[in-house]
């Protein structure tokens, strides 16, 4: 297991550790031969292979060699530095070796996991090891900087994820800014009637949490507000928030709705569909989104209000308001806040059912989405909880179509996770409220969590009919007299093996979940990544599910991928814990990969100055050269690559280190 040899040069004593990662590396890369190869490289004092280098005994092995063999540089050939660089740096630092004398060679993600041929994989691994060894010759014992962390936290989005995370952090004594772009917090959950699988009333479990948020001394709840700009970095973000003009003095409004009554716009003449009721009812220019809106404060829609649009109105609302809360002179307010951590909980967008023309949404009056049914069966909904078709009749037969916009390569290939259970809930509610016969058309039933399968069983026992098959179309084309005036669902019943036509009165589309329309904009603003489908990308699918690639920014809820309420709440808790972890620690360590200017070489040509996006470079007028403000430098190295004199250099990525790496990987190719 050990290959030892004398280093020709006393000053460089390198230890190389080739990790098997169980069979993850060893099954493709010949670790023994890689070890032997490494042992013969210049300055290598010891080369070993080990089952799991990241395990405690693995780390101890390295520490022991540092102490006993006097190693002063360490190469670990294992997984991606993104994963374990910290581990090995810490292990070395613990025994007094500068953590920056550690170099990783990524022979798992970049080699064993992606290469078919073992021989070629071994060659690739060797070349990466050679590069790491050569690179280390130019490593420097840098110092990690510590920067204090601002203790406050920003949470973007006031749905159930944002609400839950805010409460946890606030209860832990942290000051939280909760920014929500709608006039009220609550999100999609507030629109739901019941929640599966226990069928608790959504409002009953959500609204107490909403008022807790409102009343919590540690929470600054900013509704009708949007994040404009984010600057800074982990621990020290500077965030600009636009607080949109509500035209209501929030602190005076008590939510009595007298102004709404008084608004001169006649309800039936007002053309604005009520957002909260997904367009099933209409609202006036001044309105309260829903009875339990939090804050319980009305808002004036500037696109509707005659006073704001034309400057001409009787202003009956002003007259009606006893507390003189209406203020037409309000304008947007821009506020800047400092926070140490950010949780993004911006939620999802329901799939736009119109996109699937063959399901006839928007064309046939009696095709609904699940969200519309939630409102229709809700006691405070537009029909007072009566489930009626648009012509006022009660449906006798209803069809619920699953996977609308999900698991469909034309729209979204992914499973939206919540619609199977949502569709079962629909079947239950429709049956319960109307006694109608209900057909559910599913592709696969996915009821995988606690109590979900039992719920499915219950719905089955309620007599809902399940047809397995993706619905081809919903049509008003009648083949028989019986079908006339009905909507016909055409589907291949794949369990029976026949094409069926099922006439129904009502169709409910179980629409999937999509990224918010402006997810791309949010992604850019916060400098995080999106996965292919547009949901925000977590740092690691298993080990960093609420972190992002930008330190200090965490994810909660459906903005990261479709999820239901229990999962969202769990994730919000996790994100809050991670944020708390960061702000409670009080400082962050900054990778010292900053750039610096070699004064002896800089000619003061000014090339680098405009290239720095962080304005870290300026001209020292006395010395007539460029200087880099290390505190502002983020370590991209753009100035270094552009410096025509080679005066700008980047720690951890000096020209020499990269040239060595180039020669290293090519030396054994």
């Amino acid at each position, binding site marked *: 297991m050990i290959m030892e040899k004398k280093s020709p040069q006393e000053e460089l004593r390198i230890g190389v550790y080739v990790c098997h990662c169980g069979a993850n590396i060893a099954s493709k890369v010949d670790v023994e031969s890689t070890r032997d190869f490494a042992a013969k490289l210049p300055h290598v004092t010891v080369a070993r292979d080990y089952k799991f280098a990241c395990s405690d005994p693995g780390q101890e092995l390295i520490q022991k060699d540092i102490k006993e063999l006097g190693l002063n540089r360490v190469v670990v050939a294992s997984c*991606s530095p993104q994963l374990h660089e910290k581990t090995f740096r810490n292990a070395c630092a613990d025994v007094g070796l500068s953590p920056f004398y550690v170099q990783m060679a990524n022979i798992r993600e970049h080699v064993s996991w992606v290469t078919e041929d073992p021989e070629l994989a071994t060659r690739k691994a060797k070349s990466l090891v050679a590069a790491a060894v050569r690179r280390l010759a130019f490593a420097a014992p840098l110092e990690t900087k510590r920067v204090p962390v601002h203790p406050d936290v920003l949470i973007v989005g006031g749905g159930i994820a944002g609400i839950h995370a805010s409460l946890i952090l606030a209860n832990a004594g942290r000051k939280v800014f909760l920014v929500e772009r709608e006039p009220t917090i609550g999100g999609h959950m507030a629109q739901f009637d019941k929640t599966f699988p226990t069928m608790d009333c959504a409002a009953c479990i959500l609204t107490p949490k909403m008022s807790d948020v409102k009343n919590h001394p540690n929470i600054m709840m900013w509704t009708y507000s949007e994040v404009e700009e984010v600057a800074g970095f982990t621990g020290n973000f500077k965030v600009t928030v636009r607080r949109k003009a509500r035209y209501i003095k929030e602190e005076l409004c008590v939510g009595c709705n007298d102004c709404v009554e008084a608004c001169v716009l006649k309800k039936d003449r007002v053309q604005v569909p009520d957002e909260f009721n997904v367009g099933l009812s209409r609202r006036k220019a001044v309105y309260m989104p829903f009875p339990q809106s939090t804050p319980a404060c009305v808002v004036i829609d500037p696109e509707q209000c005659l006073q704001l649009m034309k400057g001409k109105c009787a202003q009956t609302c002003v007259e009606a308001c006893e507390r003189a809360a209406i203020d037409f002179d309000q304008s947007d307010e821009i506020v800047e806040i400092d926070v140490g951590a950010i949780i993004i909980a911006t939620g999802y967008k329901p799939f736009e059912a119109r996109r699937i023309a063959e399901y006839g949404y928007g064309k046939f009056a009696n095709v609904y989405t699940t969200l519309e049914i939630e409102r229709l069966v809700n006691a405070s909904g537009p029909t007072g909880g009566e489930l009626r078709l648009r012509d006022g009749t009660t449906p006798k037969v209803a069809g619920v179509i699953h996977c609308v916009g999900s698991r469909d390569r034309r729209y979204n290939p992914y499973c939206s996770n919540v619609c199977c259970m949502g569709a079962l809930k629909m079947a239950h509610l429709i049956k319960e409220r109307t006694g109608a016969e209900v057909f559910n058309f599913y592709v696969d039933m996915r009821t995988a969590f606690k109590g979900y399968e039992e719920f499915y069983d219950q719905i089955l026992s309620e007599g809902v009919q399940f047809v397995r098959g993706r619905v081809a179309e919903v049509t008003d084309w009648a083949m028989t007299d019986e079908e006339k005036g009905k909507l016909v669902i055409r589907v291949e019943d794949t369990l029976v093996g026949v094409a069926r036509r099922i006439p129904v009165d009502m169709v409910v589309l179980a629409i999937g979940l999509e990224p918010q329309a402006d997810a791309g904009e949010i992604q850019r603003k916060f400098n995080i990544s999106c996965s292919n489908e547009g949901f925000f990308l977590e740092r690691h699918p298993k080990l960093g599910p609420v972190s992002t*690639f930008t330190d200090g920014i965490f994810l909660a809820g459906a903005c990261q991928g479709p999820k239901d309420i229990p999962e969202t709440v769990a994730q919000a808790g996790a994100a809050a814990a991670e944020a708390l972890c960061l702000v409670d620690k009080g400082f962050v360590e900054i990778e010292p990969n900053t750039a610096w200017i070699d004064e002896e070489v800089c000619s003061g040509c000014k090339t680098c100055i405009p290239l720095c996006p962080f304005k870290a470079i300026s001209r020292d007028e006395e010395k007539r050269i460029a200087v880099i403000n290390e505190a502002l430098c983020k370590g991209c190295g753009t100035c270094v690559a552009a410096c025509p004199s080679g005066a700008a250099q980047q720690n951890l990525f000096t020209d020499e280190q990269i040239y060595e790496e180039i020669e290293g990987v090519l030396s054994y190719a």
Partner: protein
Amino acid sequence: MPDDVSLPIAEDFQPRIIAFFCNWCTYTASDLAGTSRMTYAPNTRVIRVMCSGRIDPQFVLAALRKGADGVLLGGCHPGDCHYQAGNYKCLRRFRLLKRLLTQLGIEEERVRLEWIAASEGDRVQKVTNEMVEQIRKLGPLRLEKIPTHPNGEAAPAPAEPMATATEGAVS
């Protein structure tokens, strides 16, 4: 023209490609390709830089000089740079470098810039395979050797005699 003389490509030619990948997008995508077990051609050697803006055109030339048959530059998509705009600097240099390399007889396919987001592991696979195939077709990069002085060793071989004698060329 002698430029057209192409040498046969060895059957077992394995192109050597150096890839400079930015830490935040393309390197991460490359890790993702790994965690997703997407196999691809084993010919690339990734050198991690924090940002594609760190990629000095001198590195590209050095890689080619030291034996790479191709160089792949990878950064975040426009607008997505972790450092706001490093990838644009990379793009600007790349556009000019390409023109320079063309003048210096380096085929278009040998130096490539790709925007690959952290989530696009499949693109790492696709681009790598594609590039390896293209370079396999082109054959090894045969740069002109830089002469070195003999330092006591044999003097450089004399060049061939002046052009092949043309008939009746002597006046």
